[in-house]
């Protein structure tokens, strides 16, 4: 649920980074946090991580400047990717305005990507949101492993698995190095703000 404050001319939207465990959702946020100046970003909050897994969520607020007269504030959240934490994922998805699905390019994660996207579809549907309606961007992460001896999925294969029906914008990425991180963020912000303003205008 976005919030529009007409006394400050400010829009707040919620964008959630979703995807299988250890796929790079937190790494995306960490990169954004490191690369942006303090004027633009707030404090990043990470709750109770067990090893390198997210247990509850990460949170990073950003101020993305103005569109016409409205200041745009976007709050980025990640969810825990592991299958068993579905209750937590549903909690974090509450009131979501846009989703980035971070898919793992590792060949061994092929099934996990599909399962996680299905899980997103179901959890959104429980909140009466159609995955085809909400702003959604895919990121095929860990492309930097392409040159190594670890087998990775081709972009075509990932498109076939994940984006065949959805047909949403996608980016290749390497969140660790920052490749594709801002392209993804820019696209989801653009789409989310557009959708929120469209709903606002139709009121």
């Amino acid at each position, binding site marked *: 649920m976005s*919030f*529009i404050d007409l006394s400050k001319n400010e829009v707040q939207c919620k964008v959630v980074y979703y995807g299988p465990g250890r796929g790079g959702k937190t790494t995306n946020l960490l990169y954004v946090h490191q690369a942006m100046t303090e004027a633009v970003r707030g404090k990043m909050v990470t709750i109770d991580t067990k090893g390198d897994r997210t247990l509850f969520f990460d*949170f990073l607020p950003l101020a993305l400047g103005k569109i016409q007269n409205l200041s745009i504030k976007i709050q980025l959240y990640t969810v825990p990717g592991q299958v068993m934490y579905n209750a937590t994922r549903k909690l974090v998805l509450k*009131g979501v305005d846009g989703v980035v699905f971070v898919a793992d390019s590792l060949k061994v994660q092929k099934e996990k990507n599909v399962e996680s996207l299905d899980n997103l579809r179901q959890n959104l549907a429980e909140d009466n949101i159609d995955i085809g309606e909400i702003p959604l961007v895919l990121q095929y992460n860990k492309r930097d492993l392409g040159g190594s001896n670890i087998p990775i999925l081709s972009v075509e294969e990932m498109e076939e698995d994940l984006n065949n029906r959805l047909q949403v914008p996608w980016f290749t990425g390497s969140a660790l190095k920052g490749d594709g991180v801002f392209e993804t963020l820019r696209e989801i912000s653009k789409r989310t703000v557009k959708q929120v303003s469209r709903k606002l205008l139709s*009121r």
Partner: protein
Amino acid sequence: MDLVLSKEAINNIVGVLDEDLLRAGADCALLVDRSGNLIVTRGDPANLDVVALAALSAANFGATSEIAKLIGEDDFALLFHKGKNENIHFTKVGKGFILITLFGKDVSLGLIRLKTAKVTDQLIPILTGEQ
């Protein structure tokens, strides 16, 4: 469902929080929605990261709602955390909002509970556009 609040509605919320909570001795009063958006902050939140507080409070409330369900309740109407010097009180406002009150050890919990109950009744019509 998006929430759009006019200048007038925001002013009304500010008035209610100032009049009932800050005058009763609360250090700070915040209204947030359950998806973590910060709607209004009143009081002196110096050195307090109110944006993070809003997100964490919404998550905290969500997590305790799940605990409520485990014991056969729909939700808990309020939560209270006691610190050495500062205390925090969360009250459910309608279905979609949370009122957060920070107060020191000199203010009684009973007074805050009384005031937040009154404030909640006043906020609901403003937030649902019935006023």
